[in-house]
């Protein structure tokens, strides 16, 4: 009843965890049946380990939070050595979120991941600045996005999901660039760029000045973008942004998402993904649908 397909990838249910909000899976083993999740998208992996930004890295905002973790991660080698075996052992479906400062870095990580078993898909986080092209983010320039997607596409036959940034004038243009580049699916949205100021210290709260806004606050923007992108591309759309209840998840599916990712809500309710799976199933039963696929994009009719 809950089965969905993302390109060649078949998932038992449409509920995934969003990158950077579920650690490497193990962090939630006491709260959630992690092997029952649609998939776990792990914290973004770069080629080399990254220390991340200096603290403070997070601040709470109205119904949301800002983070400037700075993509701290263990790097692809240690991920494979230290984190992947556990997830493989637990029979989890693993999607590896990758990031790079250059097309070459994205490709190198992909090559390395290709050699490993137990990875179901790769999610390309294109919100990073391209250091070679003057720091403009891959995710805000459609020709750069197209370039990185098509290069990575050449490196792997794993399903390739491209994760879009919402900080653009027209997200459908970015989605189309990803589709043209050979993506099997797009996921959206990443965080909105925001900031907060400490009025006592008279300085930005985050050491990094700006950070990514996530949580329930951004849900309306995310839902609108999913709605637009679902109209613009033929590949499946994965909805992300502020999903905190099963009702939120249903909204995204009705808007055209084939699956959803839960991010910030894991922090304030570590059991939320299990609850959402149950909630979706109940909704389908009460509304007499036999499959979640029947309601994908239904609000468009």
């Amino acid at each position, binding site marked *: 009843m809950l089965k969905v397909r993302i390109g060649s990838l078949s998932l038992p249910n449409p509920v995934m965890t969003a990158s950077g909000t579920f650690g490497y899976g193990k962090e939630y083993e006491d709260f959630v049946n992690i092997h029952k999740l649609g998939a776990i998208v792990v914290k973004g992996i770069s080629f080399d380990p990254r220390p*991340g930004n200096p603290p403070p890295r997070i601040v709470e905002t109205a119904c949301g939070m800002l983070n400037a973790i700075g993509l701290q991660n263990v790097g692809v080698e240690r991920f494979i050595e230290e984190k992947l075996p556990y997830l493989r052992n637990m029979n989890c479906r693993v999607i590896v979120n990758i990031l790079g400062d250059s097309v070459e870095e994205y490709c190198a990580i992909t090559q390395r991941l290709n050699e490993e078993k137990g990875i179901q898909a790769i999610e390309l986080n294109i919100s990073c600045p391209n250091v070679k092209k003057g720091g403009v983010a891959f995710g805000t320039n459609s020709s750069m996005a197209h370039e990185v997607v098509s290069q990575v596409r050449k490196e792997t036959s794993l399903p390739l999901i491209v994760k879009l940034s919402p900080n653009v004038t027209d997200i459908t243009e970015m989605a189309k660039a990803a589709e043209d580049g050979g993506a099997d699916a797009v996921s959206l949205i990443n965080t909105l760029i925001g900031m907060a100021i400490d009025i006592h210290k008279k300085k930005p709260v985050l050491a990094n000045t700006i950070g990514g806004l996530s949580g329930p606050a951004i849900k309306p923007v995310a839902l609108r973008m999913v709605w637009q992108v679902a109209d613009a591309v033929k590949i499946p759309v994965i909805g992300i942004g502020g999903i905190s209840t099963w009702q939120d998840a249903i909204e995204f599916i009705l808007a055209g998402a084939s699956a959803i990712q839960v991010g910030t809500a894991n*922090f304030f309710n570590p059991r939320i993904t299990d609850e959402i799976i149950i909630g979706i199933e109940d909704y389908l039963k009460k509304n007499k649908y036999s499959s979640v696929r029947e309601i994908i994009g239904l609000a468009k009719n």
Partner: protein
Amino acid sequence: MNTFQTNATVVKTEQLGPQIYRLTFSAYDIAKSAKPGQFVMLKASQGLDPLLRRPFSIHQVTEQGTLQILFKAIGKGTQYLSALKVGDVIDIVGPLGNGFDINTAGGHCLVGGGMGIAPMLYLAKEIIKGNKPVDLKIILGAQNKDEIAQLLLNFSELGVEVIHATDDGSSGHHGFVTELMEPILTNNNEKDWNIYCCGPHPMMKQVASICDKNSWNCWVSMETMMACGIGACLGCTIQGINTIQKQSQNYMHVCKDGPIFRAADIKW
């Protein structure tokens, strides 16, 4: 399974000072597996504002499976908690973090300032339980008498030496807890002191430096903003010292690597 998410029922509420409250919950699983220095994350709203859970040290646990927190109402979340009544239900995650390693050798000195007093009661009880005869000194600090009077009663029941200081001199030593440490501990024949400290950052920094000077072991309980409390968000970063093995940015995470750290490992 050693971390739990529970809907705990409030079984007792106390106001111990102007803005100081103590809540007792029945949270059997958490109480059973807790150790001193660990913390819990509480949902401190009915809706989505405030959004994130709030971290609190475990103040006491009982055999019956109740768990206490001691806190000061300083903002939205703590104000919400201060208005809870007996019978109300609260969503709580814990126990979290690493807790204090109680050193069996040497004497023990607990230094708590402000709400940093919270974990000290639990720690004192555990030290007393495990070590007989016990060499335990407790130094507590607060802004004024109103903030500390009721808490002192709880500590005095322990039967060990408890001394205290207030910023305004309304009770105990007039000044900082840090001023009390050396007079008490260096005059003592016990050389090998283990200092356990929790309080405002400047105080802990000062305690760490005193301990360093005297070559005492020192553990501190660190505070940062936390989103998850379980090592998933990587938001609760503090900077560790730079050693040759560790690179220049030796970031540690308070919720997983701490909240208890060896003072010598922190970049103050």
